[in-house]
Every structure is written in structure tokens, then in C-alpha cells.
């Protein structure tokens, strides 16, 4: 697979790549509820990070702070060398460079697939309509459903909709892709088609943060696995380390429930 985005994984070793996300001492409260506690994380370009954890652990909240869908009260986030502050310009720049795929797809039901994908490139990246539609069609090919371009989201299956959602996010040519439980709302027979697209994307060198329960995917594709629990990172490491040799009690407890 050609690396359209990101670094060529095979040539540059991990420690020589740039930091693309830096999170320092991130803290978030919902009222009195401390949802994120002193989270520290550095993500290298091209890394694929899978975030696991029980529900309510804050993992979704965490990745949503990266593209400013959630605010935070203490700490620092730097994405692609842009500091995430109250500056609307910074936020807009960060959102251009991060693409997000949601659990409930969130496609725009009143637009065709093609328009769904080309909307943001036209109006945010200010591309011409022809160029945006060309890129959209290519992306639809890449995710395997080029023939659906003129249909409406309501006419597609869940797996197809999620693949369109991935294409829609990729159309902005982001440096980072965030996935918030992308397959949790899909019927089992459609999970594979979406995971396959994500796998290909990972192999092409895209930086990805994925919150998921798909352990098989995590083991095969992740460069690093992070375990979240009660708002903090409990354990972090390579897939083999986490799955075969968990160190923390809570990690063991969580894995025993899942596997």
C-alpha cells in the first residue's frame, strides 16, 4: 500500500520520528467528577495507539480533548506543533489536521455520499469543487465502495456508512486519525470490513488513536496499547507486553473480563 499520508513505516525507526501529539498533565473535571487525572502521553508520527479500558474510564473523553470536542481545565495539549488553547484559530487548525470517526457514524443524512465527503474540503480547505469531488471519489475507491457516491446515507448499510465516515475524515488529508469505538454500533458481519480499512490505513503510515474493544485488531495492528481506568493511564506498552504479560492488577482484571 502506498503511503499517501504519513511516514513510510518500514524505513524510519520509531525513535527518530517527530512527536505529533504531546499531552502533559491533562486534567478534566465534570463538575466535581474528576474524569481525566494527570494524563501524560507523547505520540510519534505514524504510531498506531489503541486505547482500552472499562466504560466510564475516560478513554473516549480523552481522545475528544485532542480535537477540542471536549474542554479541559488543567494541562497542555500540543497537536502538530499547534498548542490547543482558547484561540479559535488554533482550534480550527488542529481540527483540520485531525480526522475523527464516531461510533454512530454521524454522516449528514440530507446530503449524498459524495457531498458528505467533499463538504469540508471545499469549505474549510477551500479547494475547488472539482478537486474535492475527485479526491472524494478516489477515497471511496480506497474504502471499497465507489458505486455509492450518489446515494444517501440512509440507503447504505452500517458498515458502508462507517467506511464513508472514514473517507470523509480522510478527505481533509489530516495527519492524525481519531477513532471513537468505530465498530461498536455495527452488526457483527460488518465489523470486519471496517477493521480492514483501518488496518490498511495503519499500514500506510497514518498516525491513529483508536478507542475500541476489538482485541484482535489491537494485537495485530497497534504499535502501543494504553489501558485507561478511572480517568488515568494505568499501563502502556507493546501489544505482546500488555496482553501476554500485564503488570498492573487493574490491567489483569480488565483483560480477564474481556478475553
Amino acid at each position, binding site marked *: 500500500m502506498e503511503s499517501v499520508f504519513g511516514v513510510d513505516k518500514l524505513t524510519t525507526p520509531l525513535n527518530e520520528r517527530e512527536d505529533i501529539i504531546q499531552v502533559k498533565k491533562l486534567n478534566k473535571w465534570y463538575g466535581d467528577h474528576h474524569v481525566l487525572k494527570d494524563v501524560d502521553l507523547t505520540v510519534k508520527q505514524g504510531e498506531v495507539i489503541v486505547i482500552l479500558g472499562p466504560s466510564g474510564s475516560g478513554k473516549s473523553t480523552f481522545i475528544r480533548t485532542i480535537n477540542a470536542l471536549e474542554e479541559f481545565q488543567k494541562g497542555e495539549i500540543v497537536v502538530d506543533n499547534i498548542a490547543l488553547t482558547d*484561540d*479559535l484559530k488554533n*482550534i480550527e487548525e488542529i481540527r483540520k489536521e485531525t480526522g475523527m470517526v464516531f461510533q454512530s457514524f454521524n454522516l449528514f443524512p440530507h446530503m449524498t455520499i459524495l457531498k458528505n465527503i467533499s463538504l469540508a474540503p471545499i469549505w474549510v480547505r477551500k479547494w475547488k469543487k472539482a478537486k474535492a469531488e475527485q479526491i472524494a471519489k478516489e477515497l471511496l475507491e480506497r474504502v471499497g465502495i465507489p458505486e455509492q457516491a450518489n446515494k444517501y446515507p440512509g440507503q447504505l448499510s452500517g458498515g458502508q456508512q462507517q467506511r464513508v465516515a472514514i473517507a470523509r475524515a480522510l478527505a481533509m488529508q489530516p495527519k492524525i486519525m481519531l477513532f471513537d469505538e468505530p465498530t461498536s454500533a455495527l452488526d457483527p458481519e460488518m465489523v470486519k470490513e471496517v477493521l480492514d480499512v483501518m488496518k490498511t490505513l495503519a499500514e500506510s503510515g497514518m498516525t491513529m488513536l483508536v478507542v475500541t474493544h476489538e482485541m484482535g485488531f489491537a494485537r495485530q495492528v497497534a504499535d502501543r496499547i494504553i489501558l485507561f481506568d478511572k480517568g488515568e493511564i494505568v499501563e502502556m506498552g507493546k501489544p505482546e507486553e500488555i496482553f501476554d504479560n500485564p503488570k498492573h492488577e487493574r490491567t489483569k482484571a480488565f483483560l480477564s473480563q474481556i478475553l
Partner: protein
Amino acid sequence: MKKTTSTPLWRNRKIIPIISQIIFVIIVGIVISFMIRNVISGLEQIGLTLGLDYLNLKASFPIAESIISYTPDDPYKRALLVGLLNTFKVSIFGIILASIIGVIVGIARLSNNWLVSKVATVYVEVFRNTPLLVQIFIWNFAVFLPMPKIQEALSMGPFYFSNRGASIPWFTLQDNTIIWMIVLIILVVGSVFLFKKLTKISFESGKSTYPLISSIGFIIVTAIITYFILGNGPLGFSIPVFNGNSFDGGTSLSIGFMSVLVALTIYTSTFISEIVRAGIMGVPKGQTEAAKALGFKSHTALRLIIFPQAIRIIIPPLTSQYLNLIKNSSLAMAVAYQDIVGIGNTIINQTGHTLETLLIVISVYLLFSLTTSLLMNLFNKKFQLVER
């Protein structure tokens, strides 16, 4: 290599809301102060000052119909009270009648008798798509006004119709009405208790206790006993008798009142019928099917299962229709039925105190709306389906 330039205020997502609101307040403030200044200088020119003292002045205008006593020597505030009661009168009867007719028409529309449902549909479409004021005019000018003179009044039994309005038999208060009121309240409360107790017993023991019949029977028996003790019923009855000039006894309804009442009733009943229809159709079909499968007879199913769920859907839009009816009653001034808007208008014409009078009338209607909203919210909270 972080971009650490400080955020300009106009791009700061925390500051923008504050700045926008400040700008908004400034603009609104300028507009309002402009208007207020104009009002004050305008009033100065005419020589009027704002204040509510004028309400104590003599009204000097007659009011054709009133529930409480009123003469043109009474102050303006009494006139307003009369107007308020007139609004009340036509609204209460309108609400009751429109609900009854609305429920009947609503159920008729759902009937599987083709003729009945078609007639109901025509009724709804015709009276819903004609403006209310047009309907009021038709009743007033084309139906009631052309009635014959009072000496040759049309009569249907004790009901008399003439071009001055209608005279109908009506209740009169008596000396022991108050005693009867107390007795009735006790009866209603007692029978509700009896009903609940009997239902509980029948649930627990499985025996039929006929709670509905028993409680109604209780009311009837006690009422009859009270009647014999006191000698007469709760309210007297008086029948209009023509005395050459007008009718004595009974009560008379003016043409304006009747036109407004009839038109309001019919117009609002069309909307109520649609609400009732939507309510009954809104209960999932599976409920009827489950009820049948459990062996319920169709009228029991209607009472215990369909109706309670339909009520939940019906009550919110129903209350807003009631509010609409109360507001629409303000059209009464077009046919000389003096409701609170009509009287307010007369007061404005006579005293020039436009702002104060308008504010008073507006407050009255706002009070209606607020009370209804509060009751509605209470109802919603109480009857909301307890969900996960």
C-alpha cells in the same frame, strides 16, 4: 517549537461569548431607551402622566352583560373586572363544549363506518379552514341577528330565540345552596375513597365488588336522602316567561355571546378532534393486540390500557388549544360582547391611558398562560413514563 503567541481577544473562545453579550445588551439597550424616550416625550405633549390612579375614576359607560352588578357609576377597575369575568364565562363554556364535541368528532373520525368518518372529516376540514372571525360574523350577522323580534320569538320548548339573543332556563341560587355544595364535596371525596377501597379489595380477593356502580350508587342514594331532608335540590330552576317586553326568569344570552361561544366551540372542536385522534392512534398497536391476547373485552381495554396512554399524548397539545380558545375569545369585541379586551379598548378610548391599560390586559392573559404552563409541567412530571 510550540506556537505560544497569546490569543487575541476576538479569537478567544472564552471571551467571545462575553463580548457578544455585551454588544447585544448595548444594541437592545439603545433601541429600548430610544423607544422609552419617545413615549415619555409623547405623553408630555399630550399632558398625560403614567399611573394607575385613573382606574378609580368613574367608568361612565354601560356594559351590556355582566355576571356581577355594574353601573356606569362604578370605577374603571370594576369595569375591567366585569370584562375579565365575561372572558371567563365564554371561555369556560367554550372549553367544556369544545372538548365534548372534539372528543366525539375525534372518535368518529376513527370509526370504521365510512359515512360517519367521512362526515366527521368534512366537519373538521370545513370549520378548521375557515377563519374564526368569519365564523363569528356568520353566526352573529347571518344567523342570530335576522331572528325575529322578541315579541315573535322562536321557541323550542322553554328555549326562546329572538334578535336580542336567547332566553334559556337556568339555575338559580338558593338559601341552602351552600349546604348542598358542602354535601356534594363530601360525596365526591367519599365516593372516590369508596371506589379505591372496593377496587383494592377486588384485586386482592378476586371477588367482584362492582366499585364503579357502588360509588355512583353511593352518590345517588346520599343525594336523594339529602334532598328529602332539605326539601329541595342544590340549585333552583327558573324558566323564562315573556312579560310583553322581555323575559323574566331563566337567563338571557346576548347575540354576541352566543356567536362567540358557538363559533369558538366549533372551531376549537376541530383542533381537539385532531388531537384526540392523534392521541388514540399514537398508542402503539401492540398495546391493543396485547390486551386482546390477555382476554380483555374491547371496552375494558379502552378504559384501562388505551385511554391512559392516549391521555398522556393528548394533554399537552390539548392545554395549548384551551389557551388558544381563551386568547381567541378576545375576538368578542368584533360583535359587541364586552370581554376584557373590548372593555380595555373602551377605557383606552375614553382615558387615553393606552400603555397602562394594555399592560393590565396583557398581564391578565399572561397569567392565564403561565398558570396553564405550570399545570402542564406538573402534569407532565406526574404522568411521565418512568424510564430507565
